[in-house]
């Protein structure tokens, strides 16, 4: 079965996000009252798995082993199936 996982990776809340800090400054230069910005990335993976449980296990491996560094980042997964 073909699955599509949308994996969001974000710096943990206690980790500084210099990119987010730069965006705060830029947005405020547009005259907006922005207090805080946190950035992250979205990784969309198309892959095959036997069933939904196997697909979820696979996305967990993707997140833990490569896409996020558990020391500094959290990840979440949205899975859409066939």
């Amino acid at each position: 079965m073909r699955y599509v996982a949308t994996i969001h990776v974000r710096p943990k809340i206690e980790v500084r996000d210099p990119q987010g800090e730069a965006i705060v400054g830029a947005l405020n230069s547009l005259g907006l009252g922005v207090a805080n910005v946190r950035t992250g990335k979205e990784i969309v993976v198309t892959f095959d798995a036997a069933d939904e449980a196997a697909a979820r296990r696979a996305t967990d491996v993707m997140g833990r082993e490569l896409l996020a560094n558990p020391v500094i980042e959290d990840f979440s997964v949205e899975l859409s199936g066939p």
Partner: protein
Amino acid sequence: MARVAILRFPGTWSDRDFEHALSLAGAETEILWHEDVHLSGFDAAIVPGGFAYGDHVRAGAIARLSPAIRELRRFAEEGKPVLGSCNGFQILCEAGLLPGALTRNVGLEFRCDWVRMRIESDATPFTRGLKGAEVRMPIAHGEGCWVADEKTVERVEAEGLVVFRYVDERGAATAAGNPNGSLHNVAGLRSAAGNVVGLMPHPERCAEPLMGGTDGMKVLDGLVRSLGTAPAPLGV
């Protein structure tokens, strides 16, 4: 003669500089392609700087999955000296051989500059007798900001795992002396056993007067000296 392995990943660029600097220190070196790394017969291993796998995903994240890292982990567990510089430090952290992680410099600038550091630990084969010494080395990185959770930072300090700390011109660990926003001005760390060391600066790029400094040789000479006292490796 001390035999030092230098690992090369796709995108590694400081391997030849390490080869040159280690030859000045009197070591025999071999550059090993990461898919074919066998470390038996070597006394120490270097993970040089560069952009392994183009820093895709995160600096060091893909290199960490290479078979070379399994071999390096085994080698480190035997107590053999391992040094990672710049991208090599990032790879060692990603691999869990050193604590914490290296992330985007605060201010987002790529910094190419000389920094001052104080050597805070001599419990490594690279820094014996150098505790308290101040050294000057070049950096060239965009992701050298060392971070870890509060507990890890406390443990790193309590166990004396900081080997290199950024300092200002007066020798104080201030924000002015910190090029990238690293917590506690951490520039380099050691493992609990002391044989694995990583640092963001480049000792291989300050190895003779022509390069503008020679402090890198203190670390590489230290390694070769420490190997000189060890028994000769098998098969050599």
